């Protein structure tokens, strides 16, 4: 057993160093709960503790390079249950930055609607969800995938219903819980099939089973079930019904958080599963089959999201459907991970998440300002806004154009890199790029609708807009940072792409190693030691 191994304890201590970001999050969570005992009813103190904790987690997630990790251990810690590699570290860095921005956004908007004594609860739930998402990015076996998904989901349910007195918020939260539990059950069912077929919880070993046994029908059922659970987190099409209701009802900062962080983490998880299959399975037919399935899911999601977004009149619902279609683009990217050089796609995904983070943060912040000062989210009510507050209106237009993919803005570079990776994947890739382009063209219609109302439609006589009071400098700072980041990543993308490229590496346990750790009833798998970047 493991305990009889004299190296057990030192190894555990070494492993702990690699999960410092998660440890910092847990410590901060406890601190946030303790702080109210020092000064009851103070909001600023827990906010500072949270931001400090996130900053420490951010620093702790730095400095993971493939060279610096002990090559024998490959950065797979705690008996392969977590993979600490450049890909997950960069995602964690982005996640922490984003969580900090969301906390700032909450202090600016949500605080007024929250009782001062509830502030620590909110921050603790936010940290808990961040903790789960950060584990999702690293999860490398079935148990971790499941428990990380739950750690990210359950706090999100509570966050979505945080406005307890608000009917829409409560309804959204309830729908979220119901959908979430059904998809968790589906995912568990699929996982039990995979475990039954392969006798192992390791992703690499399950992939190895495909080599030895072929793609058995039970394996297909298991994979589809697991993909169903992922689809819920990604709000991919058959599982997307919760998304608009939750996004409309939840406090805006929670919507911002869920739209980027939860989807980004799920994309990381999907990419890791697919990467494991891509490196270990050598049967090209099976790989193409998996790519086709995932690609179809992405294509349907992107197209459906865009089609429904065409006739949305509520700004938050429109952004919700837009986030569904963006998730679709990222899934399409994941699909071709099996067929091309994984580094291309992995770095494109990281860059996409980076840009998407600022686009959505900006767009939702403007939505929060409009909701608060005008009391409406109906796009038609924004007629004549451009004349009254040109800066705010132009900022919203910039964010919308970036979401559409206007050249010169970050969103274009994100889509471009993703498409450039996809086009190398043969016929399937070409088809997917075609779907991506077509969807982008369609989406222009609804992304420009707010701009049309704000600029070209005159204010109605009976419904005059209230004047927007001067905004706090901090709000302008957030909006300014988002805007600058979008122009920067759009016009001078080199810095961003370099960082993404450096980190586009993912560790995959060799099937042999998985066999060693799973001494129980293994089948014959003899694969070469495979590293993500060295393969193909």
């Amino acid at each position, binding site marked *: *057993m*493991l*305990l009889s191994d004299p190296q*057990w304890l030192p190894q*555990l201590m070494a492993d702990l160093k690699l*999960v410092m970001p998660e440890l910092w999050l*847990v410590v901060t*969570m406890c601190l946030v*709960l303790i702080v109210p005992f020092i000064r009851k009813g103070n909001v600023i103190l827990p906010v500072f503790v949270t931001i400090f904790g996130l900053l420490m987690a951010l620093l702790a997630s730095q400095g993971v390079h493939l060279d610096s990790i002990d090559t024998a251990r490959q950065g797979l810690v*705690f*008996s392969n*249950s*977590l993979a600490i590699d450049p890909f997950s570290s960069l995602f964690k860095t982005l996640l922490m930055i984003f969580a900090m921005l969301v906390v700032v956004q909450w202090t600016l908007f949500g605080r007024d609607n929250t*009782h001062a*004594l*509830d502030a620590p*609860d909110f921050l*603790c*739930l936010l940290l*808990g*969800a961040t*903790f*789960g998402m950060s*584990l999702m990015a690293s999860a490398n076996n079935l*148990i*971790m995938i499941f*428990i*990380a998904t*739950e*750690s990210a989901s*359950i*706090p999100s*349910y*509570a966050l979505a*219903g*945080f406005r*307890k007195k608000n009917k829409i918020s409560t309804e959204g939260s309830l729908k979220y819980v119901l959908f979430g539990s059904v998809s968790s059950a589906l995912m568990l069912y699929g996982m039990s099939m995979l475990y039954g*077929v392969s*006798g192992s919880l390791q992703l690499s070993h399950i992939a190895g089973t495909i080599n030895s*046994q072929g793609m*058995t*029908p*039970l*394996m*297909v*059922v298991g994979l589809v079930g697991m993909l169903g659970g992922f689809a819920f987190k990604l709000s991919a099409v058959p599982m997307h019904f919760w998304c608009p209701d939750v996004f409309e009802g939840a406090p805006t900062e929670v919507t911002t958080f869920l739209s980027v962080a939860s989807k980004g983490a799920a994309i990381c998880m999907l990419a890791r599963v697919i990467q494991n299959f891509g490196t270990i399975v050598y049967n090209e037919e099976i790989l193409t089959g998996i790519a086709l399935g995932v690609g179809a899911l992405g294509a349907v999601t992107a197209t459906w999201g865009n089609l429904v977004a065409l006739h949305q009149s509520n700004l938050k619902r429109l952004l919700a459907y837009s986030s569904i279609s963006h998730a679709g683009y990222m899934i399409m990217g994941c699909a071709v991970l099996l067929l091309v050089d994984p580094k291309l796609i992995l770095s494109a995904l990281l860059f996409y998440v980076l840009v998407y983070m600022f686009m959505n943060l900006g767009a939702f912040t403007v939505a929060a300002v409009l909701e608060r000062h005008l009391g409406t989210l109906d796009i038609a009510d924004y007629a004549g806004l451009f004349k009254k507050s040109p800066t705010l209106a132009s900022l919203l237009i910039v964010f919308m154009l970036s979401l559409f993919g206007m050249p010169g803005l970050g969103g274009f570079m994100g889509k471009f890199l993703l498409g450039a990776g996809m086009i190398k994947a043969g016929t399937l890739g070409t088809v997917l790029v075609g779907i991506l382009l077509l969807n982008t063209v369609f989406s222009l219609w609804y992304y420009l609708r707010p701009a049309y109302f704000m600029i070209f439609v005159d204010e109605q006589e009976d419904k005059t807009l209230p004047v927007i009071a001067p905004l706090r400098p901090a709000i302008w700072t957030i909006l300014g940072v988002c805007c600058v980041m979008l122009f920067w990543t759009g016009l001078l993308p080199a810095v961003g792409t370099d960082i993404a490229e450096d980190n586009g590496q993912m560790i995959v346990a060799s099937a042999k190693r998985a066999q060693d*750790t799973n001494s*129980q*009833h293994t*089948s014959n798998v003899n694969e070469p030691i495979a590293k993500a970047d060295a393969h193909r």
Partner: protein
Amino acid sequence: MFTTLAAGTDSESLAQVAPFLYLIFAAITILSAWMIVISQNIVRMAMYLLFTLGGVAGLYFLMSAEFLAAIQLIVYAGGTLILIVFGVMLTSKNPFIRLQTMLWERCVAIGLGLLLAMLMVIALANTPIKQTGTEAVAQNHDIHTLAITMLSKYLVPFEVAAVLLLVVMIGAAYMARRRA
């Protein structure tokens, strides 16, 4: 007690009854699960759920996963079910509340269920199963091994579950708290 039971699995007499026991437990599980879906009285549903969970525990015993079976009985049949019954009694004025479903809802549900069952049967029939459950489980999986594995190899999921429970408790406390 568990070890004696596990050792008993090897004896011929138990091996002979095992298939019949399996059929009985499986029948209990499936029939009461079926009744949960059909029944319209929520308290009866809870009772049928008890039989389903008990049947599953029996199946675990037959697969010589005694620890899991005990946990199944203690946690699910014991704890969770009581919680459900209490929940029903506390939330609805009339505990014998009836849940009505539309005809078309029933038709869709039956259709989907049959489709899924067919899919599973086809998938199982076409997959070569190398080991049966008993062979896979009965490899020295006593509580001692389980405990050590849980605190060494699966330490992280175990700890993460603890953190998860803390967050869940905070979320639940927030939701249940009454404050202006």
